[in-house]
């Protein structure tokens, strides 16, 4: 498969967390790897724009399998990360506003417990004790102590240590290599497209659409927050196909800063801040955590998630191609699932067995029933 006349065994397009993790895994498997990107620096796209949570999710069995597998890989990596990677095992707290959402807490608890993931069910008082700045009167919550946060651009940089970077805008990627806008081209035994929401530019037939998000970060308020907190309504928001949606999601950074999200918009391609949706997002956050209103926000920005119709990533051969692979479509879970994605991709490329089934993420799967 990997011919000696090629410049590289594998060229990856995209130096975000997914491209970086895949490059690391392939390089550690003994391959000669190069990564190309056209940003000012590595990890500059959704990797920098996103929240950087490392969460186990149960939206579907396949999502659970990949996030759970990935999280175990993150905890293995954690000890080797530099301080600037800001890895912190703060845990997640899903909060239930009412009895209906509390029923969901119990359902989730059973789901996770049955699969060996540690969780704590908290009642109203337990949530108040765990996060004193949440509003009083919430029904309860579910704590996942193994969830974590990290500053993904620094992780991407660390993963890319020693890997050759090629700078330029890739205009074509085939089974044999890539061509830059400058006309310069590189040969490779295999090519991997890890370009996030930009995937359709190089692989227009794949069902990846950009889903815009807004975030705001505050000044430093150490101790204000203990966990990443997400409202259970988040899932409704994350799955809404057409309407713009917001959900309360706030995260403590190692710096003491708070990262406040989240919003989701499909069919928007400009990166400008949408003031109406940002206000809705912040109003939602203040509804859950009234004290946030008096904290200083220092920066707001937007980013684009690579969304797919079934909320699962595309990992594997690009349909109809040989030696041209895809690792994209991770929606809001690119950081969470990057390390698992890298394993599955490398397994597929090298004909190795995988720790979890790869089929659910195969880019050639049918998306019809989601259309």
């Amino acid at each position: 498969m990997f011919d000696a006349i090629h410049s590289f065994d594998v060229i990856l397009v995209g130096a975000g967390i997914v491209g970086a993790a895949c490059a690391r895994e392939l390089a550690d498997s003994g391959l000669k790897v190069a990564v190309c990107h056209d940003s000012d620096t590595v990890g500059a796209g959704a990797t920098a724009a996103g929240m950087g949570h490392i969460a186990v999710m149960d939206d579907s069995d396949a999502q659970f399998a990949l996030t759970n597998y990935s999280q175990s890989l993150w905890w293995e990596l954690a000890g080797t990360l530099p301080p600037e990677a800001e890895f912190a095992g703060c845990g997640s707290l899903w909060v239930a506003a009412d009895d209906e959402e509390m029923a969901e807490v119990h359902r989730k608890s059973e789901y996770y417990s049955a699969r060996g993931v540690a969780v704590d069910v908290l009642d109203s008082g337990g949530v108040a004790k765990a996060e004193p700045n949440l509003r009083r009167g919430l029904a309860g919550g579910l704590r996942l102590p193994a969830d974590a946060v990290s500053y993904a651009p620094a992780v991407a940089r660390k993963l890319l240590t020693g890997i050759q970077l090629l700078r330029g805008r890739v205009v074509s990627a085939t089974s044999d290599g890539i061509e830059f806008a400058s006309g310069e081209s590189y040969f490779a035994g295999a090519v991997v497209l890890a370009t996030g929401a930009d995937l359709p530019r190089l692989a227009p037939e794949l069902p990846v659409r950009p889903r815009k998000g807004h975030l705001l970060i505050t000044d430093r308020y150490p101790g204000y927050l203990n966990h990443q907190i997400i409202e259970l309504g988040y899932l409704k928001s994350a799955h809404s196909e057409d309407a713009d949606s917001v959900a309360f999601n706030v995260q403590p950074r190692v710096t003491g800063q708070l990262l406040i999200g989240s919003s989701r918009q499909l069919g928007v391609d400009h990166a400008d801040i949408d003031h109406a949706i940002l206000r809705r997002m912040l109003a939602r956050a203040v509804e859950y955590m009234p004290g946030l209103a008096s904290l200083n926000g220092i920066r707001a920005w937007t980013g684009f998630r690579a969304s797919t119709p079934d909320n699962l990533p595309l990992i594997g051969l690009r349909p109809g191609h040989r030696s041209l692979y895809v690792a994209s479509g991770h929606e809001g879970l690119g950081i969470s699932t990057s390390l698992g994605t890298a394993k599955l991709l490398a397994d597929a490329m090298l004909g190795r067995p995988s720790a979890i089934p790869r089929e659910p993420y195969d880019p050639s799967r049918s998306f019809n029933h989601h259309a």
Partner: protein
Amino acid sequence: MIVVVGAGPAGIAAALAVQECGKAVTVVDENPSAGGQIWRGDPTHRWVARFRAFNIPLISGVRVVWGYPAARTLVLEDAVGARRLAYDKLVVAVGSPEIFLPFPGWTLPGVFGAGGLQALVKSGLPVRGKNVVVAGTGPLLLAVAASLRKKGANIRLIAEQTPAALLWPFAKQLSGRASKLLQGIGLAWDLAGIPYAPASWVTAAQGDGRLQRIVLNRRGTLVTEDCDYLAVGFGLRPATELAAIMAGPDTIVAGTGDADLSLLEGRIAGYTAAGDLEKARGLEPERDQARTFAASIDRTFAVRDELRQLADSGTIICRCEDVPLGRLEGKTCFRDAKLHTRCGMGACQGRVCGPALEFLFGWHGASPRPPIFPARVGSLLSEG
């Protein structure tokens, strides 16, 4: 309604120009009263007095923290609350903060901006009997030294990094402009007896927890000077954040400069906002002349290359995030530095380290991200 942000020379001139055209105008400013940095604490200055005489509405003590150009709305924040302010046309006349450049010890308490110390003194900081060194570059140093001395400061020295050979032609040019000449004579009187050292700059500030002494490169010789305060500035840069975030067809940005140029820029912006383009155009030749003069000052007082070498690997470059120069090694641009060292990611939003990085490495800042200044989350939700 036309809203003018900034009640310094440009904002005052803009508001008066709008008023003259018979249009409604409101001025917004973050200080307790009109005058800006130049006329801070000088309510008797004739332009400030004129502004007050016309009873132009002034919303003072508020900061424009956010804005929505498409909705022609600003978000104003004060110490306790926030509100929205709608406009038909917006004049941005927010002036120019100082440029700070890093050298060992520049983060010690007692090291101020030149304009910074002047602003604090104008707002009531007593300096009587304090030993003060004024350093950096540009005509502002003279004005600062004069005003501090008036308040009883013991000005040990003015260290001007520009060599004397460049200062003489500048002084001659000054004499060609009547108002500048008068200013020059006035300053000469106020400054009599203060050592003025061209081709000299501060290489380090030292002290235990606060400034106690500076090391000075005085025409090639290193000397130590004990002092309580150092006022050090390297010129001004226009504040571009509000203009960038509010960019659009209804936003008019007044240029910046010294008081004379700012007044002209403000009047032009005011007439433009009020729709009297003829009056605006009529002032352009005079404005262009003033700009030419300002550009010649900038050339004269361009910061010399030696000052790029002052910071060592341990010198803090980003004061908010405490990023030393050594950590910036190998970084290729401001964004690379931001993402991988946190340089420029703190509360000042890159306002201090941005110009320093431009000077040190030629890096330009990325486009600013809102809020325009750190703002309470609740302010962004205000409906009123």
